[in-house]
């Protein structure tokens, strides 16, 4: 019986909590593509060699082989682009929206999804200024939000910041290599 109870306790601890939406996608789009009134979804279907190239860069490539960017325009003026990147953590998925300026620098990062378990860690990390650390990064830069937070945030907030770093790194690599370098 003791073994059964221990097993149940371990399984309960490991159980993934459901995903929760922290910021709705339309709100993230409005915030990261400010003023845009027209949007185009740009789906980049990766060949095997390109998927491999991306994997070598950031130890990840999309499961379905498709990178999706959303380009925003205000009239004839390009406002920028954004992409959503998901990171699967042992505590469930975390999704980040990464917006880029027309010059290719990060305009902003919004954590759009977490789980019931990770939400407080995300909120603490964001409250400690995590997403501001990514502003201005360009493809080739290495996001280091977790390292910066290490001195003034809790361990779990620093941990989840590391996962957000991964999402931002994936978005940077995908944007840098494939957003403008493949013709429609």
């Amino acid at each position, binding site marked *: 019986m003791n073994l059964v109870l221990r097993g149940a306790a371990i399984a309960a601890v490991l159980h993934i909590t459901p995903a929760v939406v922290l910021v709705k*996608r339309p709100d993230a789009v409005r915030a990261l593509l400010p003023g845009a009134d027209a949007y*185009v979804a740009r789906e980049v279907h990766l060949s095997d060699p390109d998927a491999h190239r991306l994997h070598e860069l950031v130890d990840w490539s999309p499961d379905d082989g498709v990178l999706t960017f*959303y380009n925003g325009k205000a009239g004839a003026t390009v406002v920028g682009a954004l992409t959503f990147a998901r990171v699967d953590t042992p505590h469930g998925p975390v999704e980040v929206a990464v917006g880029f300026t027309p010059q290719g620098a990060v305009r902003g990062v919004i954590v759009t999804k977490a789980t019931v378990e990770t939400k407080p860690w995300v909120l603490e990390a964001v409250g400690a200024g995590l997403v501001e650390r990514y502003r201005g990064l360009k493809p080739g830069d290495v996001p280091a939000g977790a390292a910066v937070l290490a001195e003034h945030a809790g361990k779990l907030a620093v941990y989840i910041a590391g996962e957000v770093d991964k999402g931002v790194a994936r978005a940077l690599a995908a944007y840098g290599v494939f957003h403008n370098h493949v013709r429609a």
Partner: protein
Amino acid sequence: MLYDLGRADLRIKWLVTCLLATLGISYVFGALMVSLYAGFTPERVAATYAGHAMSMPMPPETTMVKEHPMSMLEFAKPEVHEVDTDLLIQDTHVHVPMYGLIAAALALVVAGLSLSQRWALGIITLLFSAPWLDFAGMWLTKFVSARFAAVTLIGGWAMGLGYLAVTALAIHQMWFRSRGVNR
């Protein structure tokens, strides 16, 4: 047989009843979770586990781009909850041990019921094979064919059926079948 729930001490009967009630609550909320994230039709289960992979199984020879306009309404559309390979590995790793413990707990209840050996073995097999079918269906849907979504649905319903059968038999034998013993 020494272990007979129908003749068991009141405390054991109450323990088993509470266990079954607790599992029942978790099954109800499990079903609600499924309705929120995957659904109860083969189409929705296939969309959850097969995702884009089934609609574009082969990567193109050279990277290609498709563009289409998006409205803000489309951003607001409810998303299909897609489970990719990494998440399915994680789900399998987390859920299968838990399902095994639940099946074991229910099988222990079955072992204490007055049933023919054939029926008891059949129900125990059902309790364990239902989660196997559930997860086998998910993996087959992802990597073989969207048609295997039906296997996941069969597994899910079989889990519910197994639970209901054990609960009905246990409650009946523990609390409603008179055997001339103290309740």
